[in-house]
């Protein structure tokens, strides 16, 4: 090693080349405090892990992240183009692939820019220095007198020059990216910070094959899985697979392994017909009854819990002093769905003891390890290539469908098996965002300052990604020899944004981790959506209790200047907005993860006076994501986040009965359509002198709280339990 070989060379639409890079990066160590390089680069410090110079002078960037619609492809290309003074079109990007790109674990947590794009910036800067030095040696000219641009290094007078290809002579740049790499001064930037249409866009409007759902391999067959109707349901004997083969022409194989049932057919249409034929004929024994019919909030509170302290300072107990006001409230958010428009899909090929996977998983390396363990294969026998899928918004069915496809490929070696979930599978079997419950107790002093903040919150985990183990993969528990589910010890993501950024002397925040009735994992912003909804709703109610303006109340408790700036900016944006009859404005603020992008939002909501239907008319947001790499990308992510969060807030809730989830399509789980989507306006506070901050999830939490506060101002009812449905907006009973 390293060995390079080509794979499926003439497979029609795709040519896939990959090499095995040798030793895997060491297990993630704590980043060294004095190492200025991004964490992903510290884990993968070799220059050529990130960047290759091609023979024709073009540059290939390798990122361990996958394109999820967040625009990472364009952002990393911009970084390389900038540092190497090369036109953007001369840069190509290779996305996550085991054995080929750096191992960056998951494309998640709004970290693509902070980690991958910054690593590429460093690698490209190191490449520039190496190329200039190579030219200096060859031309016998001091490096300082050379100019690198457009794929060449030339003398300042332009008389002598060498192309990258001439400099490298077929070799690649080598060595580690040094700690003292000199990055290009930001004052000289031409590409970064400029709005750039994403490179993938023209392919998208032409609908060229971009997605894993569109991949077609020679000899490919199609599969569907018949999932159990509900959690824990077990297949009963008596299913006649032979009858299915006779009834539906084109069925190649019926796979029944415990409660894992699937059909493989020679066409997708035949696979769907087999699925439709088999579905009503399978008999299932129901699993343990789901706690339907009881308020989910009370269910969460009653479950056995593991309690952790998130923050404590001062003392939250003790009797209130004279003039102090105590405020108590309980907030709730239900289970939410990722709801990708494209049902999850994967291709798998078992060829000569090697398993190849094409997947829209957010983490090809962890998926490789998980699938290898599920199938009992050595890790190096599994190759996973990331191919974009439809927007996922977190950990959806991508890993599960890949594991299922792998099981089916093993059952039919030598044929690429394409498995796509049906809409019903996606709605019922993706891991949801956990329901959460919040008990808040807070206190104001006589001057209306917050003195006490005590939050107790209940939630299931917000992260059950496969992470290299087989048990979190959906089929693992269905097989005849199941893999026992190992509950995560840590309450991953639950406490995200539970700690107020406001200055409050006495503080206690505790999480109670429970195992709820439904399968859950990471959904865009993890616990931050619920936490910020509860926190900012509470702050808004406390401002009202203190008789203060919502802007001034927040500003009075905030010392972080960047936090104050986004709040003032959204006030400026809306200063001429006057709510009409039955309308209200609501404000909310958060800094995502308390360390990423700052965002303040104002919602304008109209509540129909008779039917009590709330309509979000407009959302204004101010965002500070540090240095802006691509303003268009940032604006697009923020606008989409605002509207998606409004949809979560007003419409969405995963419902279930005792046996199964009742939401199985877009009628039973409605989301915002064009006619309901609010208008949005986003103001970006660019901070070129600050590091770029993850922004893709910043809008989720604040939007919910801003809408709830606007609803309260529009109709007088404070809804503390999401979603905000008309039946919760009955006029308050006034005592006479």
């Amino acid at each position: 090693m390293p060995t390079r070989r080509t794979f499926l060379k003439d497979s029609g639409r795709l040519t896939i080349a990959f090499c095995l890079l040798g030793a895997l990066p060491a297990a993630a160590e704590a980043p060294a405090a004095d190492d200025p390089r991004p964490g992903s680069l510290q884990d993968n410090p070799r220059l050529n892990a990130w960047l290759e110079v091609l023979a024709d002078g073009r540059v290939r960037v390798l990122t361990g992240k996958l394109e999820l619609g967040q625009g990472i492809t364009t952002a990393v290309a911009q970084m390389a183009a900038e540092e190497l003074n090369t036109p953007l079109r001369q840069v190509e990007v290779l996305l996550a692939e085991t054995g080929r790109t750096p191992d960056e674990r998951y494309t998640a947590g709004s970290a693509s820019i902070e980690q991958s794009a910054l690593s590429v910036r460093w690698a490209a800067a190191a490449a520039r220095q190496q190329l200039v030095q190579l030219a200096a040696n060859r031309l016998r000219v001091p490096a300082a007198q050379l100019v690198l641009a457009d794929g060449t290094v030339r003398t300042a007078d332009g008389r002598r020059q060498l192309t990258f290809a001439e400099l490298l002579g077929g070799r690649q740049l080598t060595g580690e990216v040094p700690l003292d790499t000199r990055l290009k001064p930001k004052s000289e930037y031409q590409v970064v910070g400029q709005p750039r249409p994403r490179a993938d866009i023209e392919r998208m409007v032409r609908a060229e094959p971009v997605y894993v759902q569109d991949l077609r391999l020679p000899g490919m067959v199609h599969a569907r899985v018949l999932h159990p109707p509900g959690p824990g349901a077990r297949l009963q004997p008596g299913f006649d697979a032979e009858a299915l083969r006779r009834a539906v022409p084109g069925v190649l194989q019926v796979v029944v392994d415990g409660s894992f049932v699937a059909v493989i057919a020679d066409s997708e249409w035949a696979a769907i017909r087999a699925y439709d034929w088999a579905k009503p004929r399978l008999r299932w024994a129901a699993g343990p009854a789901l706690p339907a019919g009881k308020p989910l909030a009370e269910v969460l509170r009653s479950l056995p819990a593991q309690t952790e302290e998130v923050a404590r300072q001062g003392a939250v107990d003790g009797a209130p002093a004279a003039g102090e006001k105590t405020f108590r409230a309980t907030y709730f958010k239900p289970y939410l769905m990722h709801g990708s428009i494209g049902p999850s899909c994967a291709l798998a090929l078992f060829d000569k003891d090697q398993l190849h996977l094409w997947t829209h998983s957010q983490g090809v390396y962890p998926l490789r390890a998980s699938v290898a363990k599920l199938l009992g294969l050595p890790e190096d026998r599994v190759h996973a290539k990331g191919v974009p899928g439809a927007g996922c918004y977190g950990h959806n069915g991508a890993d599960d469908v890949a594991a299922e496809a792998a099981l089916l490929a093993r059952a039919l070696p030598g044929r690429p098996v394409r498995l796509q979930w049906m809409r019903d599978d996606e709605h019922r079997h993706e891991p949801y965002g956990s329901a959460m419950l919040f008990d808040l107790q807070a206190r104001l002093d006589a001057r209306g300052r917050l003195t006490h903040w005590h939050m107790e919150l209940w939630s299931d985990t917000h992260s059950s990604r496969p992470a290299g183990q087989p048990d979190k993969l959906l089929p693992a528990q269905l097989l005849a020899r199941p893999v026992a589910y190992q509950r995560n010890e840590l309450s991953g993501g639950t406490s995200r944004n539970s700690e107020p950024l406001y200055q409050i002397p006495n503080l206690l925040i505790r999480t109670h981790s429970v195992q709820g009735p439904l399968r859950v994992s990471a959904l865009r912003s993890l616990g931050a959506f619920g936490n910020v909804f509860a926190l900012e709703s509470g702050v808004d109610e406390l401002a009202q209790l203190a008789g203060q303006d919502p802007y001034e109340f927040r500003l009075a408790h905030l010392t972080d200047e960047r936090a104050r700036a986004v709040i003032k900016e959204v006030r400026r944006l809306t200063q001429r907005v006057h709510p009409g009859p039955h309308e209200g404005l609501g404000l909310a603020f958060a800094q995502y993860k308390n360390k990423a992008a700052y965002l303040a939002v104002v919602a304008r909501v109209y509540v129909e006076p008779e039917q009590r239907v709330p309509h979000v008319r407009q959302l204004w947001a101010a965002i500070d994501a540090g240095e802006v790499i691509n303003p268009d990308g940032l604006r697009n992510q923020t606008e989409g986040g605002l509207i998606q969060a409004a949809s979560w807030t007003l419409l969405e809730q995963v419902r279930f009965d005792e046996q199964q989830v009742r939401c199985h399509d877009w009628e039973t789980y409605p989301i915002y359509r064009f006619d309901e989507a609010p208008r949005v306006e986003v103001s970006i506070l660019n901070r070129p002198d600050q590091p770029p901050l993850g922004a893709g999830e910043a809008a989720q939490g604040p939007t919910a709280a801003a809408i709830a506060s606007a609803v309260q101002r529009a109709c007088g009812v404070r809804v503390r339990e999401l979603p905000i449905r008309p039946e919760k907006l009955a006029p308050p009973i006034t005592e006479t």
Partner: protein
Amino acid sequence: MLLDALREQLHLTGTKKGCDHGQCGACTVHIDGQSALSCLTLAVMSEGRAITTIEGLARGEELHPVQEAFVKHDAFQCGYCTPGQIMAATALVQDRQQRSAAEIREAMSGNLCRCAAYANIIAAIQEAQRA
């Protein structure tokens, strides 16, 4: 179904499979110039009729004005719903009527976008109907 025939037999994968129930619009095509959901249309019923998919919209290098407008207004994120959005929008603007934003919202309400790029899609359609 027409959707499956397009994707499988004709290898036109631009038309997307989303829900198979006519609820999301990802499979929108034109049948005799009118917007239609290919996941609800029987392939045999389409015999002898003119079907246009997203692949048939551009003239070689030259994008259709609606496609141009989508690029200009960054009217997507993940892009999966985009072919359906573009086909629905193209059918909408062909009568050359100038629709208000509210009318566009109403007319496009059959096409879901989970990334919620709605604002930019509306801007793109407004631009395209002026073209």
